[in-house]
């Protein structure tokens, strides 16, 4: 009864129409609108930086994927080769042969120059003579005929054609001067110079500081590959076993709480700390070889383990307890319940966590600094598994770091190119993780 009277006689002013927005509601709407704008601004800033990053990487890095070469037809005269082989520094004589061939080819193409062959050779990579000799040694039957060589152009010539090197920049350069660049223009018109896709950059080995045009990321890619094998072989079983035990079997007490807190903390430990741990344990105590992918892999295993343990435990936790009850209820042992029912359901999460952990390890540089996988010139691809694991090597991010700190701007370009390759790998791994997750989740 009292309620009824309250409704029939509202206080003046409290009666409102839903057709007009009262000031309080308008305020709330305004707050909501402002919040949406903040969110959109935040997203825009994020997208802007992402776009800037991608543009920088693509514009700087794609140039590393093409390479200028000088095409030369060189007659393989037996007498000249014998003379060159008789000389002490053999490649220098071969270089002379290349120089003569270059001069010849230029005059054939109608390009006039007063430069000596020695000076002309500056336009080629320092390895031209060695390449020539290697071909002759590998194909002794070809001697007497002639062969068309594609010598790497020097990084300056390459950079000029890519727009990186200008005539003004060459004023102080002791290798090339502006006259060379005029010749390059003419040679390009005559078809002596061509630009093609740089497979050697992807599959080749690193080169010395003076020959950036010959440097490739292939060998350090193999180094990364062998490290990832080590990480997978150690981190996955150890990590999954540890998390299954902690999540499903371990009693809940102070000790396991302590372990839990420590694992969570380990995931946040700076990677360089793992590097110094790897140095102390694997190299100084266990005397494993320095700079070897095995040691790098073990160090990265230490770093990846917490990530894998945390993600595995999270995915085990997300399996509904009713499934465990169901299995125990029909008389399954605890282990059967875990391995027959819980683990298959947690698998997509575990795989995703593992792949993301691997991707993290793949891009990690700091721990490798300390175990000597940086600064090493990975010039020989490993032959076989043992040498893959135990011979000194580098890794992709370490190689990129190494290139980025070298003086020649051509190396800077390679560093960006290396970043593109590294990012492609990381993207591939993340896509695999997403696909696996999708594939397994459908069954559930």
């Amino acid at each position, binding site marked *: 009864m009292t309620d009824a009277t309250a409704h029939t006689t509202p206080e003046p002013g409290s009666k409102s129409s839903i057709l007009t927005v009262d000031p309080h509601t308008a305020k709330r709407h305004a707050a909501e609108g402002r919040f949406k704008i903040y969110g959109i601004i935040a997203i825009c800033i994020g997208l802007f930086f992402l776009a800037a990053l991608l543009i920088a990487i693509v514009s700087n890095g794609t140039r590393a994927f093409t390479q200028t070469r000088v095409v030369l037809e060189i007659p393989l005269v037996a007498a000249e080769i014998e003379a060159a082989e008789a000389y002490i520094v053999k490649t220098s004589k071969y270089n002379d042969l290349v120089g003569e061939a270059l001069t010849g080819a230029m005059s054939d193409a109608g390009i006039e120059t007063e430069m000596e062959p020695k000076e002309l050779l500056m336009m080629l990579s320092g390895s031209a003579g060695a390449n020539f000799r290697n071909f002759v040694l590998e194909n002794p039957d070809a001697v007497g005929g002639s062969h068309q060589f594609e010598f790497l152009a020097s990084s300056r010539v390459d950079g000029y054609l890519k727009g990186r090197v200008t005539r003004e920049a060459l004023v102080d350069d002791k290798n090339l001067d502006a006259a060379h660049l005029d010749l390059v223009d003419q040679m390009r018109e005559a078809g002596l110079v061509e630009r093609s896709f740089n497979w050697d950059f992807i599959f080749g080995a690193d080169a010395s500081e003076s020959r950036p045009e010959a440097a490739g990321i292939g060998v350090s890619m193999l180094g990364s590959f062998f490290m990832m094998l080590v990480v997978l072989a150690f981190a996955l079983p150890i990590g999954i076993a540890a998390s299954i035990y902690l999540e499903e079997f371990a009693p809940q007490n102070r000790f396991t709480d302590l372990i839990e807190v420590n694992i969570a903390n380990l995931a946040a430990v700076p990677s360089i700390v793992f590097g110094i741990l790897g140095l102390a344990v694997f190299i100084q105590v266990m005397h494993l070889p320095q700079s070897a992918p095995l040691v790098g892999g073990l160090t990265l295993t230490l770093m990846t383990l917490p990530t894998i343990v945390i993600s595995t435990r999270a995915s085990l936790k997300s399996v509904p307890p009713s499934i465990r009850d169901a299995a*125990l209820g029909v008389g399954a*042992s605890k282990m059967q319940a875990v391995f027959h029912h819980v683990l298959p359901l947690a698998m997509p999460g575990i795989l995703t966590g593992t792949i993301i952990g691997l991707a993290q390890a793949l891009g990690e540089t700091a721990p490798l600094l300390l175990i000597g996988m940086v600064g090493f010139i990975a010039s020989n691809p490993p032959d076989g598994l043992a040498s893959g694991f135990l011979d000194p090597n580098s890794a992709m991010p370490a190689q990129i770091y190494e290139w980025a700190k070298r003086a020649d701007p051509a190396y800077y370009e390679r560093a960006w190119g290396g970043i593109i390759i590294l990012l492609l790998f990381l993207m591939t791994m993340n896509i695999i993780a997403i696909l696996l997750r999708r594939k397994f989740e459908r*069954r559930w």
Partner: protein
Amino acid sequence: MNDMRLIERAVDMDDIKISARDVQVYYGDNHAIKDVNVDIQDKTVTAFIGPSGCGKSTFLRCLNRMNDTIDICRVEGDIHLDGEDINDKRVDPVQLRAKVGMVFQKPNPFPKSIYDNAAYGPKIHGMAKNKAELDEIVERALRRGAIWDEVKDRLDAPGTGLSGGQQQRLCIARAVATEPEVLLMDEPCSALDPIATAQVEELIDELRQNYSVVIVTHSMQQAARVSQKTAFFHLGNLVEYDETGKIFTNPEDERTESYITGRIG
């Protein structure tokens, strides 16, 4: 009807399947079950009723030692299955649970095929020597779960794709597939609609032919419909345990009467 039941009860009286004496359950410091004494008869449906949190589910889970899986839970007292102490050190809970099957409140089929759901128990207990025998066991279990006709054409379909009522009957089939002697049901119909509930209740009545069934329920009507004996739990105590007819018509304890008339709970 009632008379017939009385006759049945008279027959069953001397056939005690589970006897519990002075059972205490503690969750940490919380004394959840206090001095429970109960004799559960074979080939009978026994209902546990009581308000939420009164310990009926906890007590049910003592009967197949499912409480072992809860770290802080401690059970004292004697529970005998056919005269054998189920808390004896020599008893493997895994074996016990094969004898005392359980159906849970929420239907929880494995996210596998219907066939695999029913076949899982027999497989891990090595009950079938070959595929043909296993097929037979699965068919028998699904028939007993009163779900065979609905799923026989799609045994490879996932069990999670069935309706709620079908899932629960599949879970019952899964529980009976291991040929248990006792079937524990923890509010098996609370997640089901009335039609599915009726189907499951019918099934429970049929299961009584072969098993001793213990069912925890919130619905007093359900207890009255399916059970022959009813136990009323209140605040961790077993207040009254008697024939269902007597509990619902002429309870001895005041608290039982208050509960069934809706004054407490």
